[in-house]
């Protein structure tokens, strides 16, 4: 089990507000660009998709892989980030 990253801690530590999608853990510039092209430019849009999929891990990861061709680790990091944020603020 790898520890949490600073990006993850920063995102989970506060409300996301209008944060960019690239501030999500596991989402870099590349994946952020792809998500933006797909219409998910903000973090809350990804959160909306996460909620639409009813927080289903597999579905969300599959969606991530389908939309932005994320790897399993990237999808997992993003899922954990959103999941923990929801547990904290939702």
């Amino acid at each position, binding site marked *: 089990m790898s520890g949490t990253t600073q990006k993850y801690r920063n995102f989970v530590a506060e409300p996301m507000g209008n944060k960019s999608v690239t501030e999500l853990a596991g989402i870099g510039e590349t994946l952020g660009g792809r998500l933006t092209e797909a219409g998910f430019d903000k973090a809350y849009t990804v959160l909306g998709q996460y909620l639409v999929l009813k927080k*289903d891990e597999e579905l969300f990861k599959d969606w991530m892989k*389908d939309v932005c061709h994320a790897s399993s680790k990237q999808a997992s990091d993003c899922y954990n980030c959103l999941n923990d944020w929801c547990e904290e603020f939702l």
Partner: protein
Amino acid sequence: MADLDDFDTMSDADLRAKMISQGLPNIPVTNSSRKVLVKRLRASLGGQTTPAVAASPKKSNKRETLVPAAPSAAAPAAASIPVDKPDGVKPGSAATKGRRTIASTMNDNKAAERRRPEELVAKKPAGAAPTQTQRRISSSSERREVVLERPVKKPERIVEEVAVPKRTNYHENTLEVNSMIVLESDEEEDEQLARAADLVELQYKAKEQPKPRSKLTTTTTNTYEYTGKSAAQMAPQVYSSKAMDPPRRQAYESSAATAFNMVPSSAVSRTQTSSSSYDYLSNPTGRYSSFVRSPTQSYVTAAAPALAPVFASNSGHRRSPPRQPFANELSDENEADDGQYESTFARNLARQRSDRNSPYSRRTIASTDTMGYEFQARRSLRPEEVSVSVAFRRWLTSLNGAYNLKSKMFILLVVILLIGVYLVFH
């Protein structure tokens, strides 16, 4: 293929109804989630499509390699879930699920095999029920070995438990014999035992020597005469520290106690040839050394009262601290005590000195001692205490020894008396 086309052309509501009918979760179908949900539905239906393989061939290959030793029976078990996914996402997840289960079963089997000995080892100290272990072990030999190990360990523990009280008893016995066996190394004990053996030999040698020699060994500087008490009463408390034995002598006494017990009492009384302390047992006057210590300071323990006289007689030259005479006399603290003793026993001391030929006669006796430095301690005791009368008597004794002056003086006295009688009558 018709189903697949239907899924692609199916409306969101129909697709959602289809998913519900397949037992999938009721997830709203949106444009963004439609694709994922269709994949999930296809995976649940078991339909396999070729485009998925073309979409993500790498992933499928990777996952195939991830299950290298998957048993053939496991694949049919997961036949409902296609191994290869149509587009690399949905079936992939299902495939991963199936593979995970397969891999998990394999891993579980292996892990279970690995864990079993650990669990058994962990359960051994916990004292797990033997019936459970036997049931599990019925198919494996390792468990049988483990079961066999358990009774082997139990006797060891029992032996250890039995050994502990033995040790304690042993120490208790030694302490009963003599409580001074403490914190002595084995080497020192060996040395002390060797010295004890030497002393025993000296004791036997002392038997052959004439008895008056013991008188010559008596000390005049620090011996005092107690007429009121008997020697036997004083024995447990008597302790002579004049002998200049090394400090280690204090410890081997206990180990050599049995050896000294074997020695007859007469021999024990003659052991003073190696020391200068006076033997109060052989002395009818009850003289004993001036170093009388309290019972707490005495090395003779209460647990061995029968041995007390022997120890007391032996302790004169074995247990005495070597440098104490120097320390006691040179220290200012002990001067007062010495003064007390001198005040009370000064006359007796002078008398004892007068009885002896010379204080240096003990040198020759001390020279026979293995220690060899005994007379030095005597020299340092009270060199200035020699009074005029004692010196005069010594001078007379020396003259008597040199010129046989007594007989001459006796003749001279007789002659003077005859002259006096002659003058009286004439």
